[in-house]
C-alpha cells in the first residue's frame, strides 16, 4: 500500500477533503448567482418593471443564506492549509501562499466590503450605488474563484518554480500563474458556477410553475434562464473536454485513473484504445477485474485519432499511481450530468419554439418541470464529482510530480485528526441541513409581492438600522423611477 493510504496520512486527506467538499457546496451560488442578481437589478433599473425587482429580492434571500454558509466554511479553508498541511504550506509558500494572500486582499475582503451594502443597504444607499455594490460582489467572488484556481491549477501542473532549500522558489511568475491547468480549469469552474446558479433559478421557477404559484412571474424568469443555458451547457462540455485533454498531456496518471486505463499496449502489441463504460479495478491496482469496453473511443477522446497512444498506469511505478475507483466513477457521473443538463436546456428551448413556454403550456409538460427541479440538484453533484476526480487523480502527489502528499502533512496524530474530522462533520452538516431547511422555508413562503418597492416609500427600521434618506443619489434610474421616490 502506498504511504498516502496509511492511517495518519489518509485521515489528513479525509479531513481536508471533507471541509473542501462542504465548502464547494456554497461558493458556486455566491459566484454565479451574484452575476444573475446583478442582471436582474439592472433589468429592473432599466425597464422600471417591478417583476425584476421582486425576483431579485426573492433570490437575494436565498443568496444570503447561502452566503453565510460559504463565508463560514471559507474562513476554515483559509486556515486549514496551515493547520492540516503545514509543511506543504511552507514549501509552496513562495507561490501558493502569495496567491492566497492576493485572494484575501483582492477578493475575499473586496466581497465582504460590499455584501453588507448589497443585502442590507436597500433604502440606505441610492439605487445606483446599490447596483454598484451588487456588481462588486459579483466581480470580487469571481476574482476569488480565479485566484483559487490559479493556486489549485498550479498544484496540478506546477510551472515556473524551482525547488531549493525546501521551498518552491518562483523563477517565472507568468508561467506559474498562467499554468496550463488554470488556463482551462478556471473557465471550466467559473462556467460551472453560472450553470449551477442558472439551474438553481430554473429549478425554483419550475417548482413554482408546477405548484401554480406566481407562475407567470417565474415563467418570465425561466425564458432568459433557459436561453442562457442552451449556450452555457454545451460550452461547459467543450471546456470539460479541453481540460481532459490538458490532463492527458500534463498528468497522465490522473487521466489513466479517470479512465481505468491500466495497459498502454494490448497483448498483441498494439495501442490499447479501449474506453471502459464500467470497470472494477483489482486490489493490486494493476488491472481491471471486470470491464465493459468500447475500442477506439479512448484514443478518440484524448488524442482525437482512432488509434492514438494513451499512456496507461502500467507505465508508472505502483507508488506513483492514484486509486482508480473514485476518479473513474466520479468522472463518469460528472460527464453524464453535463450531458443531461445540456439535454434539459435543449428541451426547454424546444418547448419555447413550440410556443409552450408560458404558465399554461408548461403545466402540460409536468415531467419537464419535474426534471428541471431535479436539475437544480445535479450541478452540485457534478461539481463534487469533478473536484473529487481532480484531487484524487492527482494523488499520490500534493504538487504533481514534485511533492508527495505525505511530505506535506502537518505534525499531528490520529486523535487530533479524528477530532477535527468528527467535529467538522457535525458542524458542516449542521450548516448544510440548516441552509437547505431555510432554503425550503423561503421558497415555500414565496416572493414578497406586496411590500413597497424600495425607494417608493420611506421604511422605518429597515434591516440593520434606521432608514434615513440616503446621501447617494440614484445614478441611472429612469424618469419613471424618479417619480416613485
Amino acid at each position, binding site marked *: 500500500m502506498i504511504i498516502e493510504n496509511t492511517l495518519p496520512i489518509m485521515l489528513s486527506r479525509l479531513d481536508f477533503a471533507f471541509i473542501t467538499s462542504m465548502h464547494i457546496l456554497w461558493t458556486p451560488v455566491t459566484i454565479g448567482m451574484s452575476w444573475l442578481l446583478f442582471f436582474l437589478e439592472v433589468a429592473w433599473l432599466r425597464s422600471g418593471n417591478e417583476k425584476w425587482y421582486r425576483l431579485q429580492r426573492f433570490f437575494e434571500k436565498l443568496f444570503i443564506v447561502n452566503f453565510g454558509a460559504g463565508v463560514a466554511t471559507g*474562513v476554515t479553508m483559509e486556515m486549514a492549509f496551515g493547520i*492540516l498541511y*503545514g509543511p506543504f504550506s*511552507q514549501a509552496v*509558500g513562495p507561490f501558493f501562499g502569495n496567491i*492566497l494572500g492576493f485572494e484575501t486582499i483582492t477578493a475575499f475582503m473586496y466581497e465582504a466590503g460590499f455584501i453588507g451594502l448589497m443585502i442590507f443597504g436597500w433604502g440606505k444607499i441610492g439605487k445606483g450605488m446599490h447596483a454598484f455594490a451588487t456588481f462588486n460582489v459579483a466581480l470580487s467572488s469571481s476574482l476569488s474563484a480565479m485566484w483559487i484556481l490559479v493556486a489549485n491549477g498550479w498544484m496540478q501542473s506546477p510551472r515556473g518554480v524551482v525547488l531549493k532549500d525546501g521551498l518552491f522558489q518562483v523563477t517565472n511568475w507568468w508561467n506559474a500563474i498562467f499554468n496550463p491547468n488554470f488556463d482551462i480549469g478556471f473557465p471550466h469552474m467559473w462556467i460551472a458556477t453560472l450553470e449551477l446558479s442558472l439551474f438553481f433559478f430554473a429549478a425554483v421557477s419550475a417548482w413554482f410553475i408546477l405548484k401554480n404559484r406566481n407562475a407567470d412571474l417565474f415563467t418570465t424568469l425561466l425564458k432568459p434562464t433557459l436561453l442562457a443555458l442552451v449556450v452555457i451547457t454545451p460550452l461547459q462540455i467543450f471546456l470539460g473536454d479541453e481540460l481532459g485533454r490538458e490532463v492527458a498531456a500534463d498528468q497522465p496518471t490522473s487521466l489513466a485513473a479517470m479512465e481505468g486505463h491500466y495497459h498502454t499496449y494490448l497483448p498483441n502489441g498494439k495501442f490499447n484504445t479501449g474506453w471502459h463504460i464500467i470497470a472494477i479495478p483489482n486490489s493490486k491496482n494493476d488491472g481491471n477485474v471486470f470491464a465493459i469496453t468500447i475500442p477506439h473511443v479512448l484514443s478518440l477522446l484524448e488524442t482525437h485519432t482512432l488509434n492514438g497512444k494513451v499512456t496507461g498506469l502500467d507505465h508508472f511505478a505502483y507508488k506513483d499511481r492514484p486509486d482508480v475507483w473514485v476518479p473513474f466513477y466520479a468522472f463518469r457521473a460528472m460527464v453524464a450530468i453535463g450531458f443531461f443538463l445540456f439535454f434539459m436546456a435543449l428541451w426547454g428551448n424546444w418547448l419555447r419554439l413550440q410556443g409552450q413556454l408560458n404558465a399554461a403550456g408548461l403545466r402540460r409538460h409536468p415531467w419537464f418541470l419535474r426534471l428541471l427541479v431535479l436539475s437544480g440538484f445535479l450541478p452540485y453533484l457534478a461539481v463534487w464529482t469533478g473536484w473529487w476526480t481532480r484531487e484524487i487523480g492527482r494523488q499520490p502527489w500534493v504538487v504533481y510530480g514534485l511533492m508527495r502528499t505525505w511530505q506535506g502533512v*502537518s505534525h499531528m496524530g490520529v486523535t487530533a485528526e479524528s477530532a477535527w474530522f468528527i467535529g467538522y462533520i457535525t458542524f458542516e452538516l449542521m450548516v448544510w441541513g440548516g441552509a437547505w431547511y*431555510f432554503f425550503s422555508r423561503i421558497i415555500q413562503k414565496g416572493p414578497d409581492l406586496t411590500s413597497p418597492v424600495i425607494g417608493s416609500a420611506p421604511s422605518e427600521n429597515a434591516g440593520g*438600522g434606521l432608514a434615513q434618506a440616503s446621501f447617494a443619489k440614484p445614478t441611472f434610474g429612469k424618469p419613471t423611477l424618479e417619480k416613485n421616490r
Partner: protein
Amino acid sequence: MDHIDQILRIHSALSTFWWILLGLFFVIYIVLDGADLGAGVFSLLLKNENDRAAIMASMAGTWDANETWLVVAGGVIFGAFPLVYGSTFNYLMIPLMFALWGIISRAVAFEFHVHAKGSRKFWGLMFGLGSLIAAFFAGIALGATLLGFPMSTKNAQGITSSADPFANTVPHFSGNALSFLSPFSIWTGIGAVIAGGLAGTLYLCARFKQEDPIYQKAHAWATGFSYLALLAVVITLVWSYAIMPDAAKWTGSGWFGWLVLLLAILFSAYKMMTAHAAHRDFPALLWCGLIVVLMWGGMWATNYPYIVPQTWTIDAGGNPANDLAILTLFMTGFVPVMIMYNAYQLWVFRHRITHLAGYESH
C-alpha cells in the same frame, strides 16, 4: 558578496514592512470583530429572543467584513510569512479548530435566525455561544503564540525516506496537540472574553438609542467590564513581564518610551471611562479602540525582531525577497482601498437602532 548583502537588506526591509501591515490587519480585526464578538457574548445575558435578534440586526451589514480582517491577516501570514503560517497554525490546531467552529456557528446563526420560527432559540444560542467560543479560543491562540513552540526540520509525520528533498530544510512544528495549553494561554483566553465584553457593550451603547432597554443594560455592563478589563490588563502585563524574555526591554534602556506608552494607555482608559459615564458613546468606543491599538502596537514592538517570540524572527519567517517584492508591488495599493470601502460600509450602517429591530425579518 556585496549583492547578496543588498538582497538580504531588501528582504529584511520588505519582511519588516509586511510585519507592520500584519500588525495593522490584526489590530483592525480585533477592534472591529472584538466588538461584534463581545456583543454576541453579551447577548447571552438577554432573555428575550427578539433582543438578541436586535443585537444581530445591529451588525447585520458589517459583521462579515469585520470578521474578514482575520482572513486578510491569515492571508498575509500565508503570503508573506508562509514558514510561520505552516508551523504556527499547525501548533494552534486545537484552539483554532474550536475558534473556527465558533465562527461557523455564529456566521450561520446570522442568516438562519431571521428565518427561524421553532429553532429561533437554538440559533440565538449558537450566535452567543459561537461568539464566546471564538473569542475565548482566539485569546488562547494568541497567548500560546506569545509563548512560542518547538520546531524540528525532520518530516512532520516522522516518515524518513532517503529521497525526500524536503527533509532537513524547513523547520516544522514538533510539539504535540496540547502544547498550546498553559495557564498563561488559558488566562489570555479569559482576557480576550473580558476585553471583548467591554468592546461589545461599548459598541452596543453606540448603536442603540439611549432610551432603549438594550442600551441601558449594555451601559451598566460596560462599566463593570471596564474595571474588569483594567484588572485583566494589569495581570497580563505583570505575568508577561515575568515569563517572556522579550518583555525585559520594558525596563531596559528604552524604558522612557515604554513608560510614555503606558501613560497613553492609562490616559485613554480614563477618557474612555469618563466618556462612557457621560453617555458620549461613540467617543467612548473610539477611546476603547485606541487602547487596543496602543496595546497591540506595544506587543508588536515588544516582540521585535520576532514575529513569534523566541521561535520565528521576521527575517527567518519571511518569503524569499523576490516574492515579498511581488507581494509589495501588487498588494500594497489595495490596503488603503480596502480600508476606504470598509469605512464606507461602516458609515452606511452607523445609525442608532432600537430593540424593535429584532422584531423584523427580512
